[in-house]
């Protein structure tokens, strides 16, 4: 029974893992603030 549950859970883990690896998500990543800002200064400096 445990082996069957493990088969099911293991396949799910592999699926999630594959998606995360494709996305480049890492456990120890230092991540920048994901909320963007829209400042007029930034726009005037970089926006064409």
């Amino acid at each position, binding site marked *: 029974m*445990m082996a069957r549950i493990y088969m099911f859970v293991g396949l799910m883990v592999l699926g999630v893992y594959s998606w995360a690896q494709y996305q*480049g998500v890492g456990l120890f990543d230092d991540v*920048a603030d*994901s909320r*963007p800002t829209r400042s007029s200064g930034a726009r005037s400096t970089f*926006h*064409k």
Partner: protein
Amino acid sequence: MARLARCPSCGAPVEFKSVASVLAVCDYCQSTLLQDGEALQNLGKMAALVEDRSPLQRGAEGRWRGRQFGLIGRIQLNWDQGLWNEWHILFDDMKSGWLSEANGEYVVSEAKRVSEALPAFDQLELGRLYMIDGRAFTLTNLLTATCVSGEGELPFKVGAGYPAPVADLRDDNGAFATLDYSDDPAKPLVFIGEPVAFKSLAWANLRDLSALPQPTLKARSFACPTCGAPLQVAHEKIETVGCGSCGAVLDTRNEKVAQIAQAQRQLLAAPLIALGSKGTLQGEAVEVIGYMSRSTESEGIHYYWREYVLAAPEGRFVWLTEYDGHWNVARVLSRTLRAGAGQVRMDGADFKHFSSYQASVDYVIGEFPWRVTLDETATIHDYVLPPRMLSQEVTPNEQTWSLCDYIEPGEIVAAFGLKTALPPPRGVYANQINPHEENHRRTCSRFWKFSLAATAIYILLLIIGPGSNLTTQPVSYGPNDDDEPKLTREIPLPKGARRLEVSHSTNLSNNWVGLNMTLVNKDTGEAWQAYREISRYEGVDGGESWSEGSRDDEVIFTDLPPGTYVLAEEPEMDPLAPRVGAEIKIATAGPRWSSLLLAVIFLMLFPIWTRMRKGGFEVTRWAESDHPIVTSGEDDE
């Protein structure tokens, strides 16, 4: 070349087929005739043989190791545990040998001259190793038998009542040796051979047992001399009968039944399989003929178990043992094994020592092919390799090894067609299969497959995945740089990518730099902020080098919409710090080793759990042994 002579008593022809034969018993008048040169000396009448329903007879022929042989004589011997036959055999190369027939075991042996000096009979030690003919044999049986009778040709002089001190030895390859001290208690005759399966000898001219008048042994009924209960002996080679009514142990070798012991304890449990039950156990037709209750004492507590004697084909016997609902099928091995360092090896497999204890017989019911004693204790050493167990039983005169196979109660019910189920097993038995073993093995197997797949996915995405370098750009930071941010080249974010990894590799030394980073989407004007401080300090203190921090740094910008990006950096530094060189690398994020690690750790939880369950079962198993597994918690106590 056979020699024909005339019996000096009755004139009947007497044939000496073997040149080694010096004695013959006349078939007609049972005179014992000793060759004395050309003459025959009559030593008197030979006692009658005891009918033992042996399938062998003089004139029977067989084949052993490619050599044809015939049975030309027999000595019938008696000892504490019963009767046995030594058949004198003549091979087709005119050499003679012996076929021993005892309790369903057959051993072929030949006389051997050996160079080793062997000890006198009274100096032999049971269980000790002796070198014989260059091989190491263990002494397994030490006895003084008495000759009952003889027939046919024999190579030495025998007569009823002759004592025969003999020692049986076995090696761990199945070889057998007998030291016969009948002629000289200081210098034995040596016979070396091997146990053989009866059918393997390709017999011809065997005795027709069905032609015998239904003998006294067949369903011989009698009343228990102690309590009068009706009893019977219905099988061959039965030495003892236990009375189920009063616990008397009766010697049934003679027509006059004699009591030899009386059970001192009550019968605690009736047999779960009735005596007389017939069935097919592990492919073998068997019948339950005897039942005994045995016990051992440890720290004032008595532990009881039950043993059933099963009659099997060809005069063999099989044992069924039961303790707390756990059953084993036991068969006596024809060879000995050498125990050492807490284990014993058989056929390349190591059995671990489980426990040693003194066992006594408390009660017997039914028929037994050996002389049961209630007052004698045996030392038992159990070695386990589930589902098998090797059990060494040592008495003052004998040591035997039995191989036990754990069997589920359901198999017993099916084998004997029992109408009621047997009690379920309680606790964990020495050689019970660990029910978590297979589960753990399968879980481990799957763990390795999953881990391999996760690693393969990681490598595959490293090679062909979305992670790719978008730009690498050198840069330098100085305390006196102008206030304008340092800009990278424009970076088009590839379709489908939503994460950018910004890495810095610097040449910092005992210095730091703070970086205010702004990643700007040039198409929308949206900006993502990050602050990173990179520092690296190093030196030598007390002769030992040290370092702190890292010259390199990575940060990930997530959830980025498609577009073209520019990274702006505004450094902060110590005003007196030297200029710092660096390389900025911007890439779409690829597979991470940390994700691989996390997946493997998660997948490992299951094997760890099954390993704990398997280990818990083993702790319970070995708690009953002489070598309990001590856990750290118990250790602390």
